[in-house]
């Protein structure tokens, strides 16, 4: 595994696109959180904020930052798609095997990015939560309700698993990014809304919707009461989706001609 991580590092060390995308993916959730915190801590909105139960004070700040950050996880997905489809574009997926990686190692290399990017997202949102809670909130640091950040982390992992799956199946960056966004911004939501309306709360169990159910938008979420499963049901659903995506990626890589 050390060799795989070292090799992946050599691939991106001087790759400008990687660093630009990584910085964007890291900064945009931070900016979004500070923007919202600022917006709801000044002027007229400040009163509304108080009605909503101090969303930028501990412990509620964890749900707020997790929910806001979750809108930006697509940026990490783009990065993972680029890193994966690059290998197909340059045919280095083939060369890596010829040079002496097991096909399995190639999948591990991409799973390493999936985990690394998710952990970066987790770290950034945690830090953002602490700073916003301390600077905009009225309470002292507390990790009560930190579970919302863990839900956010799971949602990033499932989103990246889907991105990796799409990248491995489609092999081209442009089309993979378009399909990923079509799914994450529209298809998942629409299917979920249809299912919820005609079938019931099972509609909340779609891959990305499951995370959304766990992270109700704090500023409006409390106004809408909705039938929901217990949180663990959504967590299990997310874990199942991650396993299925990773399994298909492995299967595809182990069997296909390169």
């Amino acid at each position: 595994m050390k060799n795989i991580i070292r090799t992946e590092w050599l691939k991106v060390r001087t790759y400008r696109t990687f660093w630009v995308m990584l910085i964007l993916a890291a900064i945009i959730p931070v900016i979004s959180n500070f923007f919202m915190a600022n917006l709801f801590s000044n002027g007229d909105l400040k009163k509304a904020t108080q009605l909503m139960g101090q969303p930028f004070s501990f412990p509620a700040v964890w749900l707020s930052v997790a929910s806001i950050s979750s809108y930006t996880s697509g940026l990490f997905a783009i990065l993972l798609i680029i890193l994966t489809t690059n290998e197909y574009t340059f045919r280095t997926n083939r060369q890596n095997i010829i040079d002496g990686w097991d096909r399995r190692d190639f999948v591990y290399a991409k799973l390493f990015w999936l985990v690394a990017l998710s952990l970066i997202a987790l770290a950034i949102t945690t830090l953002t939560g602490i700073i916003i809670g301390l600077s905009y909130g009225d309470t002292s640091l507390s990790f009560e309700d930190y579970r919302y950040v863990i839900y956010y982390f799971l949602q990033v992992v499932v989103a990246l698993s889907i991105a990796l799956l799409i990248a491995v199946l489609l092999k081209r960056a442009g089309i993979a990014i378009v399909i990923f966004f079509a799914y994450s911004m529209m298809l998942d939501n629409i299917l979920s809304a249809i299912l919820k309306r005609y079938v019931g709360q099972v509609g909340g169990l779609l891959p990305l919707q499951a995370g959304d159910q766990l992270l109700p938008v704090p500023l409006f979420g409390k106004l809408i009461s909705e039938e929901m499963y217990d949180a663990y049901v959504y967590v299990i659903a997310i874990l199942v989706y991650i396993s299925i995506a990773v399994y298909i990626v492995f299967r595809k890589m182990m069997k296909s001609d390169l």
Partner: protein
Amino acid sequence: MQALSGVSFDVPPGSVFGILGPNGSGKTTLLGIVTDVLKADSGTFQLFGKPAGASERRSIGTLLETPNFYHYLSGWKNLEISASIKQRGADDIERVLKVCGLYARKDAAFKTYSLGMKQRLALASVLLGDPDVLILDEPTNGLDPSGIAEVRSIIHDLAGSGKTIILASHLLDEVEKVCTHVAILQRGQLLLSGAVSEVIQRNDFVELAAADNQALVALILRFPGCNSAVVSGSSVIATFDSPPDTAAINGWCANNGIWLSQLQLRKKSLEKAFLELTHTSNS
């Protein structure tokens, strides 16, 4: 589409093994299977006498079809990645870049390289870590004449130092110049394999002419060991059971009253030998 069927042979250690065949005959498919980038429906192969895995591949330098590198990285950095995956050769990068004549451009991005330079980088990657076995699929593709000559001399040197080299090519004289053994593929079938001298029989022949070619034919057929003589254009082509002795032929003709205006020992071209081989199998 079945690309290969019933192809089976051994590559002796230390040999330069040519895999010869026209375009689309299955050369690359065969090597792709051996390097695990293609999955065969059936059949087995061994590397170094054991079932092949990633660690066996790490000790083989392989160039398969086109050079595959990260376009945005320099030649040097691309070789760092190869060395990292091979787990060897990191301190060998300078040497292989010099051998392949790329050292001056080592810091330029791969995407700025010409086709020939890309091929040279692929060769440099093959040489990385000084492997004992090399697989080269059309190694002179895209190179200019001096590049082709350089690659041939590299292959010669490697062969001389006892490395095992598997060389796939549709260029016959490339194979003739460097190979000790050869396997000939045609439409996925193995036609022949073995030592070059056994596989490609190439009897020398003699081209000769005199004032009266008909008389010459009649005479030369009586020469000991001559098995055919025909008029071809303005000269006579004669073949013999054993390597012909031109001085003896000259003397024989003069003693029998025919003075030769032309006498030349010729080798059947490899192209012709190869075409004969593949045509025989067609019919």
